[in-house]
C-alpha cells in the first residue's frame, strides 16, 4: 500500500459495498432495455413486491403494473421519458405477487450508449402506500366538491341566461347552450309542442336526423314523460331497434331525452346526442331535470307575457282590434301609403241611439249589442280591412289600397249590417250608424300624421250626425285639393 493504490482486497471490498448499496438501497431499483424488458432488479424491490428475481428478469416491466397504470405508463410515462430523458415522481401501482396493488412513485432516466442513443432505462421506485391513501381521500373529496360546485354554477348560469330570454327561440337557444356545456354534449336540440300538439324544432341541429323526433312518433311520448330517459346503443335492445339504426346513421351512441312541463301540461322535450357511449348518474339526471324545470318556468312566463300583449291588442268586449292595435296599424298604413302613394281610407262609425239602449235595457244588454255590432261590421268589410273599437260606441275601419269606387259599396254594406234588427233581447230595437270617411285616393301626403287622419274621419262622422244621423260623409283629400261630398 506504499504507492497508495487500492489492493485487490480493497477493490473487492468496494465492489461488495457497492453491490450492497444497490441491492439494499432504501428504494426499489431496476434497469430495462429501451423496450422495457427488465435487465436487473435489486433486493429491495424483490422484497417489497414478493417476486423471485427470475420471475422479473427478461419480462416487460409494464406487465407488472396494475392495468390502469399500464395505460399511464405506455401512453404518457414513456413518451415523456424518451423525449425528455427523464421522468420524476409519477404515481403508479405495481402488482404484488399476491395480486394486491402497491402504490408507488416512480423516477426514470434514459442512459445513453457511447453513440448517444438510448441504451437502458433506469428506474427507481418508492413506496407511496400511505401517501396514496391520504391522496385518494383528498382526491375523492376534491372531486365531490368540484362536481357539486360545477352543478351549482351550471344552474346559476342557466338562471341568468334564461332571465334575459323573451321568446321561445331565445330561451331554447340558451337552454341548448347551457346543456351542451354542462354535459359535454355533441349536439343538443329542443323541441316544443305547438298549439296543434305537434313538436317543433325550436333550437338545435335538424341534422340530428332522427325522424322519430320529427312529429308524431315516440317524441310525443317523450314530451309527456315525467323523467329523463336515456337511450344507449350499448343496450342490445336499443342497438337492434329501429331507433338504434337511426342513431347509428346519425352517429349517435347515447341519447338523453328530458321532458319540459309546466305543472302537468307537457311543453316539449330536450334531446341531447352523444357520439360515444355515455352513462349518467342520479346527480346528472337531477341536473338535467333541474335545467328543464327552470326553462319550463321561464317558458311559461314568456307565454303569459305574450298572451297579455295579445290581449292588449284585442278589444275584450267585441273581439275587434283595440285602440292600441288601431293606432299601431294606422301608423304602418300611413307610412306604406306615403311611401308607395297607395290609396287609403279611414271610416269612423258612431252608433245612433245606443245611449237609449244602455239606459233602457241596461249595460249588460248594451255590451251584447256592441259585441253583435262588432261581428256584423267585421263581416261587412273587405278581406284585409281592419275593424276596431275606439271606446264607447265608436268604431273605425281602416281600408288600405282602396280604390275610391270601392269605398261606396263598403259604406252601403255597413249601413245595411247596422240596420238589420238586433238579435239581442229579440225586441224591435234597431240601431243605425253615422259614418264619416276620409279618403286619400293618391296616397297620404307626406307630413300628414295618423292622428290628423283620425280627426278628419271623426269630423266627417259629426257632419253625418248633425245631418240627422244614419248618414255618411266622405272627405276626399286629393293632393292639396280637398273635396267634400254632401251628407246623404
Amino acid at each position: 500500500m506504499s504507492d497508495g493504490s487500492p489492493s485487490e482486497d480493497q477493490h473487492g471490498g468496494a465492489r461488495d459495498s457497492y453491490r450492497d448499496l444497490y441491492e439494499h438501497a432504501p428504494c426499489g431499483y431496476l434497469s430495462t432495455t429501451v423496450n422495457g424488458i427488465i435487465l436487473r432488479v435489486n433486493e429491495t424491490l424483490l422484497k417489497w413486491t414478493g417476486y423471485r428475481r427470475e420471475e422479473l428478469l427478461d419480462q416487460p416491466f409494464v406487465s407488472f403494473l396494475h392495468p390502469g397504470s399500464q395505460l399511464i405508463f405506455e401512453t404518457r410515462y414513456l413518451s415523456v421519458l424518451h423525449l425528455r430523458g427523464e421522468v420524476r415522481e409519477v404515481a403508479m401501482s405495481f402488482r404484488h405477487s399476491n395480486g394486491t396493488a402497491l402504490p408507488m412513485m416512480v423516477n426514470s432516466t434514459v442512459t445513453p450508449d457511447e453513440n448517444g442513443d438510448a441504451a437502458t432505462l433506469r428506474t427507481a421506485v418508492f413506496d407511496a402506500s400511505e401517501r396514496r391513501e391520504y391522496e385518494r381521500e383528498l382526491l375523492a373529496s376534491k372531486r365531490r366538491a368540484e362536481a357539486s360546485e360545477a352543478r351549482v354554477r351550471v344552474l346559476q348560469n342557466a338562471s341568468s341566461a334564461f332571465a334575459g330570454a323573451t321568446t321561445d327561440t331565445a330561451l331554447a337557444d340558451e337552454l341548448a347552450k347551457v346543456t351542451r356545456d354542462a354535459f359535454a354534449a355533441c349536439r343538443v336540440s329542443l323541441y316544443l309542442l305547438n298549439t296543434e300538439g305537434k313538436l317543433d324544432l325550436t333550437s338545435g341541429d335538424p341534422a340530428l336526423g332522427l325522424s322519430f323526433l320529427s312529429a308524431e312518433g315516440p317524441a310525443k311520448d317523450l314530451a309527456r314523460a315525467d323523467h329523463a330517459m336515456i337511450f344507449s346503443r350499448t343496450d342490445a335492445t336499443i342497438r337492434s331497434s329501429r331507433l338504434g339504426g337511426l342513431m347509428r346513421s346519425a352517429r349517435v351512441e347515447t341519447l338523453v331525452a328530458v321532458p319540459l312541463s309546466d305543472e302537468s301540461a307537457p311543453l316539449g322535450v330536450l334531446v341531447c346526442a352523444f357520439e360515444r357511449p355515455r352513462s349518467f348518474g342520479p346527480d346528472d339526471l337531477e341536473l338535467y331535470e333541474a335545467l328543464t324545470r327552470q326553462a319550463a318556468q321561464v317558458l311559461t312566463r314568456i307565454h303569459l307575457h305574450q298572451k297579455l300583449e295579445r290581449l292588449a291588442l284585442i278589444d275584450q268586449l267585441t273581439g275587434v282590434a283595440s285602440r292600441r292595435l288601431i293606432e299601431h296599424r294606422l301608423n304602418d298604413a300611413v307610412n306604406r301609403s306615403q311611401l308607395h302613394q297607395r290609396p287609403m281610407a279611414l271610416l269612423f262609425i258612431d252608433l245612433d241611439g245606443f245611449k237609449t239602449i244602455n239606459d233602457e235595457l241596461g249595460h249588460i244588454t248594451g255590451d251584447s249589442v256592441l259585441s253583435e255590432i262588432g261581428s256584423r261590421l267585421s263581416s261587412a268589410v273587405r278581406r284585409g280591412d281592419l275593424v276596431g273599437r275606439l271606446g264607447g260606441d265608436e268604431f273605425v275601419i281602416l281600408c288600405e289600397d282602396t280604390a275610391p269606387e270601392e269605398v261606396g259599396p263598403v259604406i252601403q254594406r255597413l249601413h245595411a249590417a247596422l240596420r238589420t234588427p238586433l238579435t239581442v233581447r229579440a225586441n224591435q230595437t234597431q240601431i243605425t250608424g253615422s259614418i264619416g270617411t276620409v279618403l286619400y285616393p293618391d296616397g297620404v301626403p307626406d307630413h300628414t300624421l295618423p292622428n290628423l287622419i283620425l280627426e278628419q274621419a271623426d269630423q266627417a262622422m259629426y257632419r253625418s250626425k248633425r245631418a240627422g244621423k244614419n248618414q255618411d260623409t266622405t272627405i276626399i283629400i286629393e293632393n292639396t285639393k280637398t273635396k267634400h261630398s254632401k251628407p246623404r
Partner: protein
Amino acid sequence: MMTYPIQQLSTVLQRNNVTVSGNPDGRLIVFAHGFGCNQRAWRFVTPAFLAHYKVVLFDHVGAGSTDPSAYSFGKYDSLHGYADDLLEILDELDVTDVVYVGHSVSAMIGVLAATRVPTRFSALVLVGPSPRYINAPDYEGGFEDEDIQAMLDDLDSNYFGWSSTMAPLIMGNLDRPELAEELTESFCSTDPAIARHFARVTFLSDNREDLPLVTTPTLILECSADIIAPSAVGRYVHQQIAGSTLVTLPVSGHNPNLSAPDALAGAILAYLQ
C-alpha cells in the same frame, strides 16, 4: 428538421399546429400522435421520410402547445371531433393520395376520417390500433371498466396539487422561459381537465362498427408484446378491415415510434413501396 412556412397560415392549420417538411414534390404523409403526447412523438421516425415524402405533422387540439381555448368539450367528446379536424386539415392543404399514419388512438381517428371521405386517402397505417379497450362479450380489449377508472385516478394523482397552467406562472419569472415550456411539455398536455377528458374519450370509445367500413388500403402495425393493444386486438382489426395487411414488429411495448423508430419507419416504407 427544416420546415417551410405554409403561406398565410389558416386558422385550421394554426389551430392544430400543422407543420410541413420534407420533399415539397413528394407524396404526402401525415403522422398523427396518440394520447399522452404531441407531434414530437414522431421526431425519431420522420427523418426516414424527408427525402421522398412531404411530411405533415400536427397536434390534436388540447395537446402540445395548441390553444386551450380552442378545446370544446362537446366537440371532442368523441373521436369524430378529431376526425373532423383531420379532414379540415387535408381540405385546407387541398391534398389527395394521402398516406395517413396514426398511432394508438389516432389510428381510430384515421379510420373515422377515411370512412367518411375515402377519396382523400390512398393508404392508412395503423400503429397499435384498438377500436375498444374494454373487454366485451366475444371481444378481448385487454381492460375492464375499473382499470380505466384506476387510470383516471392515477392521472388525477399525477396532476394532484400541481397544475400545468401554474407552470408558466411559476417559471415565467425566471430568465429562462424555455424551462416553463419544458415543464408544461413534460406532461405532454396543457390542461389537466383536457387530459382527463381526452383519456375518457380515448379509452371509453367503441369504434368496432367502423372498421368494416374502411375501403382504403390499410397496414396494421402491432408490436410483439403490447399490453395496450394486445395481439388479439391486432388480429381483430385485421379481420374487420377487408384486404388489410398485418405486420408484427419484433419489439415490445406500445411506442415503437420511440423505442424502435427505425424498425417502424422501415415497415411503413416497405408497405408503401
